[in-house]
């Protein structure tokens, strides 16, 4: 069982902009299956994410939660079913994949910053070469997001000079610079020391407050309670249970969910 933390941010979360659209579908996954050669990792996944939703996916390690969100921007290929992101169905067509990836930001467990580029260059690389935004403008945007994640003074340093928490914040800012409509978080705090988890969560909460559509694979149950509008529990490659956080934590229905929660919440 991977470690689970209950870190919370000590301030009320501003929910005024957190509105879930009732008409606009951001992501739709229909009857999706995935195999790693002969191993059936994802089984019959059905998921509809509306714009503005904040979804937390929880589950024991190996349950397929990371694989699921990696399928959403096609870092992994699925074999059966459909994945439709912003109205574009993901197929082998490279053009569509690029289209989807431009609109979907992703934050990784191990940050994956480009170590040979400065922080600023990390942030402007994709806007310049993918969106064709003029450099000056891209840098302006980059500085804006660096300020938002509260490290503008690190702009000219290299990733190796930053702490883990700072690197993860830069990674979030890097994704935001592409002005994505959806953000995927793949265990963003698992590789961080406890005191750094909070600074990253703080940034994620402020993103949610701005109404970003987010899917987070995380063990941060405090974050789930504070921010999520929906918690999904996965085990053995399938969605076992989903509910609003309050109901999910206080009144789990499925045996596996109960077992999981009893193991992580004492």
């Amino acid at each position, binding site marked *: 069982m991977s470690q689970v933390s209950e870190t919370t941010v000590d301030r009320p979360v501003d929910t005024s902009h957190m509105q879930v659209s009732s008409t606009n579908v951001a992501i739709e996954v229909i009857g999706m299956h995935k195999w790693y050669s002969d191993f059936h990792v994802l089984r019959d996944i059905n998921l509809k994410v509306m714009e503005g939703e904040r979804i937390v996916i929880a589950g024991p390690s190996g349950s397929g939660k990371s694989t699921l969100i990696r399928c959403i921007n096609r*870092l992994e290929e699925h074999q059966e079913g459909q994945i439709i992101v912003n109205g574009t169905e993901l197929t082998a067509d490279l053009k569509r994949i*690029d289209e989807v990836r431009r609109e979907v930001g992703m934050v990784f467990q191990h940050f994956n910053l*480009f170590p040979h580029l400065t922080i600023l260059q990390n942030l402007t690389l994709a806007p310049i070469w993918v969106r064709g935004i003029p450099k000056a403008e891209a840098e302006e945007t980059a500085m804006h997001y660096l300020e938002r994640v509260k490290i503008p003074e690190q702009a000219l340093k290299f990733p190796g000079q930053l702490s883990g928490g700072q690197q993860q914040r830069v990674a979030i800012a*890097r*994704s935001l610079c592409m002005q994505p409509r959806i953000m995927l978080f793949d265990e963003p705090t698992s590789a961080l020391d406890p005191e750094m988890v909070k600074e990253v969560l703080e940034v994620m909460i402020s993103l949610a407050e701005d109404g970003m559509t987010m899917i987070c694979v995380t063990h941060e149950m405090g974050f789930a309670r504070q921010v999520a509008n929906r918690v999904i529990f996965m085990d053995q490659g399938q969605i076992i249970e989903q509910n609003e956080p309050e109901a999910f934590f206080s009144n789990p229905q499925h045996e596996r969910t109960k077992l999981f929660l009893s193991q992580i919440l004492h």
Partner: protein
Amino acid sequence: MTTLDTGPAAAPRVSFFNDPVIRGIIYQVVVAGLLIAFIAWIVGNTAANLAAQNKTTGFDFLWKTAGFDISFSLLPWSRASFYWEAFLVGITNTLLVAFIGIVLATMLGFTIGIARLSSNFIVSRLATVYIETIRNIPLLLQLFFWYFAVLKAMPAVRESLALPFDIFINQRGLMLPRPTPDQEFTWVMVTFGLAVIVAIALSVWALRTRTLTGRYPRQIVLAGKAADACITFLIAFVALLVLLAVIFPISNAPMLAAILAVVIAALSVTRFAALARGVLSFVIAFLILDTAIGGMFSSLPGFVTTAVSAAVALVIARVVYSGALERPPSEARFPLALMALIVIGVPALVYWLTDATLAFEVPVLERFNFRGGLQLPPEFVALAFGLTVYTASFIAETVRAGIQAVNKGQTEAAQSLGLKEGDRLRLVIVPQAMRVIVPPLTSQYLNLTKNSSLGAAIGYPELVNVFAGTALNQTGRAIECIALTMLVYLIFSLLTSVIMNWYNARVSLVER
């Protein structure tokens, strides 16, 4: 003293021999003394031996006439030349073969290293077999094989093997046509140099504008489109001409080829550009395959060759076609065709305008030997070839390790930002891989240079052969000759490490 020994408190002053500083000094003095004694013993013995053999020492022999022949030299050499000239000839011959070996081994090594990482089973296995075979066999054995078993077993001069383009191969080596440019051709070379500079400057400007404003300069985009059509026309014309004049000869081939080429070029600027590329790649792939398969399996009937080539070329054309469909519009592409047109077209124009001629002196078989042309001795060919093949296998491993050293997460991060494969490689993967590849690559270059000394074993007149071999035997100045030879390699090595230290300091990743 005895009372102090039993006391619990240690003496404030350590005894003389237990003081680490003094101990260190004593050790060092002893080692230095032993070394000096050893050297003195050797020097004494050597002096006595030399005196007994009536030999003198010193470097004065460098200014004496050498009086021996050197079979291959870039510098003017005759029997009347001095020993220092022999020294220089040795160095230049070493550098020549090392340079050629380095260029070829780099190309071959990178290709094989990348092939080894291919997801295609056959390609990666072929690369693995190459690497594991070549690097586990001594280089000297490989040189012997190429020299004695392959080149020396070539036909005699009279039955020389004739290759295309007036190239001949026989026991005496490789005979190539020698370019003999006339006076006006200098201008062509000058324009070529200028054109390269202009093309580089334009590229830098275009890329900079692209970064600053988000798009390539308008003029460049327009010129790029025109250049695209021009280059397409040229390639299509040549390919079609070969197809219609050589493979399926018809009358009036040039005319038809020109018309078809114009059509393809015209298509390439419309929205059917992908179709034009598909057709063009079909013609080219068919030409290459038909020639290659025809040459490789000469026993196959012609129609089989044609059918197989056409089938494979069709698949290739399909690949190119679907690739071309996904190409971004020309406004968003680096104008590669424009740069190619400048580098090739402008000098060609000058060539035509100045009426320059570039003739080739073809090697001609006379009664006993070839006359004229560029004659490469078999020693050189075997050494350059052997060094290339051997070092390429090590470079390939270096390249593979370098690419694998770039974390998979880097590719994923670049992908999730929407970077296309070309940009991903250019901006993220290659810069990081090169940092890992360059240092071991340089040491492979140095190894190749050192290994070129094995040329001595097959009679290529490089430094060790000329100086530590012939010159030493003639003068008997063993110490001087070997010292000078080693000094040259030491300088190569020091230069390399100076450059490497500078490079490492420049590119090393900044860490906390």
